């Protein structure tokens, strides 16, 4: 028993050493990095750094890191300034200017700032709803961050924060019909806030609010895509990884860094989020079809069974693929899965193999159950009894078999 334990410790240490050497080099060997990350990054140690490299946020040349990080983080601060702070200051001064403005909420002119604000508020309300319910099993996102956006939360700030903006637009829609200038009153509604937000002290921000800000900025910068439900589930694990890293610099800048990593990742997977591409070569429809086609090549009986009960990939694989399995497994497993996904040179072929592996591993149940039971099974993958390492090993086996 003891020797086994020692053996595991030794293996873990050796693994850490491998990563230390790899990440300590002047120029990172991308091929080696992929190969090692594919096997899983060591927990709480260098996963954040590996992901930043794999997602092309950091260059391979180590000496360029500091410059690059400084540049990107400054750019992100500018985004906050332009997209949240400046509009937020205007909003706040508008509130006190008492209705003598040239621009007003009922201004039909398409250039009206208010028109844009209404659209933004709809988007923001959606983001808000989804971020509050991000990873509810985990207390992390409800907790206050050590690194809130100071300019927004400091006492006496003259900026309307996103949180205030959500509260206001709830109030506005409640009162606008009854009272055109009634944004400031209606006390009965102020209770909503204390119920909806877990009480944080003045000047504090919960992690989910940081996630909300990142998504808002992303949506503002990508108006063609805007915010689509599910993006929160893509950003969540990245932000979690950066905000819980052992490295101070990484935690301090988790917001900016995860914004860029998320942006880079979305550049690769955004087609899944675009409705008009559903049926195209790059859309989610195609990926789902690919999954069934590959399954057919591997396990024709299993494929046949799914066809027979008319269990379409839309019924489950839509979510599996769009969210890169982030809703199918507990967070630590998701992080482990993403190590392999990000390490995939042909992103995201390996995702298809993992999905196939999941089906193959419950093959007997699929073959012998009826439609509702199979639906339940694939909608709630039994990760308690089928270990993530078993899934990944099976996926690797399947990918070798096909190549």
């Amino acid at each position: 028993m003891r020797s086994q334990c020692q053996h595991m410790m030794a293996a873990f240490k050796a693994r850490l050493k491998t990563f230390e050497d790899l990440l300590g080099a002047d120029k990172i060997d991308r091929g080696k990095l992929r190969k090692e990350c594919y096997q899983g990054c060591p927990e709480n140690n260098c996963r954040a750094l590996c992901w930043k490299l794999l997602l092309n946020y950091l260059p391979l040349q180590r000496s360029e890191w500091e410059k690059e990080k400084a540049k990107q983080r400054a750019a992100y601060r500018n985004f906050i300034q332009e997209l949240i702070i400046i509009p937020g200051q205007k909003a706040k001064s508008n509130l006190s200017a008492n209705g003598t403005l040239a621009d007003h909420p009922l201004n039909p002119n398409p250039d009206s700032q208010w028109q844009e604000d209404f659209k933004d508020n709809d988007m923001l309300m959606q983001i808000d709803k989804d971020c509050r319910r991000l990873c509810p099993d985990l207390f992390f996102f409800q907790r206050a961050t050590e690194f809130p956006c100071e300019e927004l939360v400091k006492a006496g700030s003259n900026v309307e924060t996103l949180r205030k903006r959500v509260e206001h637009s709830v109030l506005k829609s409640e009162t606008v019909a009854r009272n055109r200038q009634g944004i400031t009153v209606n006390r009965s509604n102020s209770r909503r806030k204390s119920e909806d937000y877990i009480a944080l002290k003045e000047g504090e921000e919960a992690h989910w609010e940081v996630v909300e800000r990142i998504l808002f900025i992303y949506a503002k910068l990508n108006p063609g895509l805007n915010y689509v439900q599910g993006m929160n589930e893509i950003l969540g694990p990245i932000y979690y990884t950066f905000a819980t890293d052992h490295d101070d610099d990484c935690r301090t800048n988790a917001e900016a860094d995860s914004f860029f990593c998320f942006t880079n990742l979305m550049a690769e997977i955004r087609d899944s989020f675009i409705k008009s591409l559903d049926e195209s070569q790059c859309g989610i429809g195609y990926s789902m079809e690919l999954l069934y086609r590959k399954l057919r090549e591997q396990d024709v009986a299993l494929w046949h069974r799914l066809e027979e009960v008319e269990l379409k990939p839309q019924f489950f694989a839509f979510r599996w693929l769009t969210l890169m399995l982030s809703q199918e497994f507990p967070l630590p497993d998701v992080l482990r899965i993403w190590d392999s996904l990000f390490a995939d040179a042909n992103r995201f072929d390996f995702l298809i193999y993992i999905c196939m592996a999941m089906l193959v591993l419950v093959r007997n149940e699929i073959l012998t159950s009826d439609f509702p039971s199979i639906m339940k099974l694939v909608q709630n993958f039994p990760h308690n009894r089928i270990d993530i390492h078993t899934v990944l090993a099976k996926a690797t086996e399947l990918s070798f078999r096909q190549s």
Partner: protein
Amino acid sequence: MAKKTYDLLFKLLLIGDSGVGKTCLLFRFSDDAFNTTFISTIGIDFKIKTVELGGKKIKLQIWDTAGQERFHTITTSYYRGAMGIMLVYDITNAKTFENISKWLRNIDEHANEDVEKMILGNKCDMEDKRQVATARGDSIAKEHCIPFLETSAKANINVEKAFMDLAQAILNKTPGRVAEPGGVNVSSQETGSKKCC
């Protein structure tokens, strides 16, 4: 292979804007519990509940859909097979009520003509935050000749009744119908379950 443990199979669909509480309603009905911490539904979800109505065992296959516009191509494909559609809005959010007519048009476009419908104004326990008067819900429902209920998944108000009423309405239209267990049936030439209602 599963034995046929029911007489009839009804397929129901829940639609409505994001965040109105579709998943919570379904969870209340299927598990008799309330959970405030539901993650957003991406694509669709699925639950089964067997109930007894008029001496018959009825298996309800209930599809829960994502509310956001992006998922409509995915979700409208389930409209066709649905025998009952539950259209949900949130009484504390006027916008979700205004969108009811949009959802009704969606049903007209994609569902079977004789699909049974029901409008639900959810979160009726939150009276102090109400934005949509009961009368407004009532009037839009009357205008379209659709039954209407205000519900609360949290306080367990009218949830069971909503589902049972909808099932009853479907049952009333299907006298002496024999179960066609879509999915249980393996003989693939028998696609009868598709032509339900």
